[in-house]
C-alpha cells in the first residue's frame, strides 16, 4: 500500500509536537503517493483523535497509556506487518528510538535516522540525515518500504495540527513479551524550569561576568523573557549537554 504511517507520541495524555510535525509531512507525502496519512495511537489516546484531524485514518492499538518500549514496538510491528505502509515515520526521540529502529530491523525495512528532510523521488524517497554533530548532511535513497526517524523541529508542527473527526480503526496488536514493565513517571525537581514553555530564552555565558550581573538587571527588562540561564548554577547532564529540565534561576 502507498500509505504513510505516523507513529504518534504522547506524554501525560498530550500528543507531543513531533507528532504534528510528522503528520503534516505525512499528509504532504501521501498526496504524492496516492495513499492515506495514517496515525497510529496508543492507550487511550484515540479519545483525542479529534486533534489528529489531518490524518485520513487513526489506527488505535490500545494497550497501556504509559509508554512501554517493548509493548509499543510490538504493537507497531504488528500494524506495519498487517498494513504494509509505504513509509513509517517515527520521531528520532527517546520514544521513537525504541520503536523505529527495532521495527524496521525486524521487518527487514531500511531505517533512516537523524532525518530532517524527506522528499519523494523516482518512485521512492530521498532522505537527508544530519550526521557527525550536524557537520555533514547525508542523503539516502530508499526504493522500498522504509522506516524514517525524523529529528524533532525539522517540520512545522502547526502544519499538522488540524482538528477534525478522522475515522478510527481499532487494531488487535501484539503486546510484547512482558519483559519490560513501566514503574513510574519521574517529574523534574520542583524548582526547575521547563524551557519548552517559554517564548523567549536568553542564554548567557562567561561574557555576563557574574551571576550578580543578571540579578542587577532591571526587573522590567527581564519580565517579557523566559528563564535566564547563567553560567553559575547551570545544570549540565553527565553527558555534557545542558538538560532542558534543569535550568536554574527563573526570572
Amino acid at each position, binding site marked *: 500500500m502507498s500509505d504513510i504511517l505516523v507513529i504518534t507520541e504522547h*506524554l501525560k495524555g498530550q500528543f*507531543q509536537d513531533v507528532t504534528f510535525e510528522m503528520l503534516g509531512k505525512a499528509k504532504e507525502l501521501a498526496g504524492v503517493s496516492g495513499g492515506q496519512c495514517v496515525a497510529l495511537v496508543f492507550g487511550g489516546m484515540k479519545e483525542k483523535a479529534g486533534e489528529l484531524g489531518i490524518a485520513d485514518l487513526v489506527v488505535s492499538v490500545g494497550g497501556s497509556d*504509559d509508554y*512501554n*518500549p517493548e509493548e509499543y514496538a510490538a504493537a507497531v510491528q504488528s500494524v506495519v506487518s498487517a498494513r504494509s505502509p509505504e513509509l513509517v515515520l517515527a520521531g528520532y*526521540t*527517546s520514544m521513537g*528510538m*525504541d520503536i*523505529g*529502529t*527495532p521495527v524496521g*530491523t525486524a521487518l*527487514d525495512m*531500511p*531505517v*533512516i*535516522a*537523524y532525518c530532517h528532510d524527506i522528499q519523494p523521488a523516482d518512485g521512492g524517497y*530521498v532522505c537527508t*540525515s544530519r*550526521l*557527525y*554533530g550536524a*557537520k*555533514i*548532511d*547525508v*542523503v*539516502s*535513497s*530508499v526504493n522500498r518500504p*522504509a522506516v524514517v526517524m525524523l529529528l524533532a523541529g525539522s517540520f512545522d508542527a502547526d502544519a499538522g495540527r488540524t482538528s477534525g473527526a478522522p475515522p478510527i480503526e481499532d487494531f488487535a496488536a501484539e503486546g*510484547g513479551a512482558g*519483559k*519490560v*514493565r*513501566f*514503574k*513510574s*513517571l*519521574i*517529574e523534574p525537581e520542583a524548582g*526547575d524550569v*521547563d524551557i*519548552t514553555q517559554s517564548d*523567549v530564552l*536568553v542564554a*548567557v555565558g562567561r*561574557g555576563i*561576568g557574574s551571576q550578580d*550581573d543578571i540579578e542587577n538587571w532591571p526587573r522590567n*527588562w527581564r519580565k*517579557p*523573557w523566559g528563564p535566564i540561564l547563567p553560567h553559575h548554577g547551570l545544570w549540565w*547532564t*553527565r*553527558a*555534557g549537554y545542558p538538560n*532542558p529540565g534543569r535550568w536554574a534561576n527563573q526570572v
Partner: protein
Amino acid sequence: MRIIVPLKLVPDLVEELEVDDSGRALDTEYVKFKLNEFDDHALEEALLLKDSAGAEVTAMAVVTEDADKLLFTALAKGADSAIKLTGGEPKDSHQLARMFANAIASQGFDLVMTGVQSVDDRDGQLGPILATYLGIPCISVVTGVQISGNSVTINKEYSGGVMAEFEVDTPAVLGIQAARQTPRYAPVSKIRQIQQTTSIETVAAGDLGSGAGSEISHMSRPEKGQGAKMLNSVDELLEVLKQVGLV
C-alpha cells in the same frame, strides 16, 4: 551478572570533516577517531555496577588500527576482559550490530550496555538493532541502572526533564545516555601495565548480513545559516534586544 559493552570508534568532531571524491563517504585520511562518548558512558555505568553489585564487565570492539588501545584502556579502567572481533569491515550500524550479535550470542551474558547513539548512525542506533538480532528487549536513553536479581531497574529520559522508571528482565540491551558519574580516566602508565600483563581475546566476526538496505547518494556540508554575531557585553545584548522590541 555479566555485562558486555560494545565500543565503537567515531570521527573526532573537533576535526574538520571533508567528503571524499566520490561524494558519498567521509575522507578519513586525516581524520582522528575517538571512542564514541556515549559508549564511554556505557562502560562507566557498567563499571559502576561492577563496583556496587559485583558484575563482570567485558569490553568488545571491532578490530581497527586503534582497537587494541581502546580495549586496553577499558581494561585499565576496570573491565574484567576484552574481546576483539576480526574478519569483518562493517559498513553501517546493521552490519556492526550483526558482528556484535554473532560474538555476544556465543559469550553468555545478562546485559549489553551500549551508547544510546553515535554521530554516524545513519541507519539506526546500534542498541535496538543488536537487541532485535539477539531477540531481547532494548531500552534507549537510559541514565541510571540498578541490578535487582534477574532484572534491572532503569531510568529513561524523556523530553522536558521528565524520566520514567522501568523494570527490565535480563537479558536485555540498554542504550546509555549518561552514566551516573563522569567516565573515569585511565592513566597511561596503567594502560601500559595492562598491555604487558593482560591479553585480548579474539573472536571471528561471522556473517555480517546484507546491511542497511539503503544507499548513500550524496554527502555534503549543511547549508549555512546567516551566522552568529558574538556579543561582548551585557550592554550590547540589551541593545540587540531593544532593536527586536523585547525590552
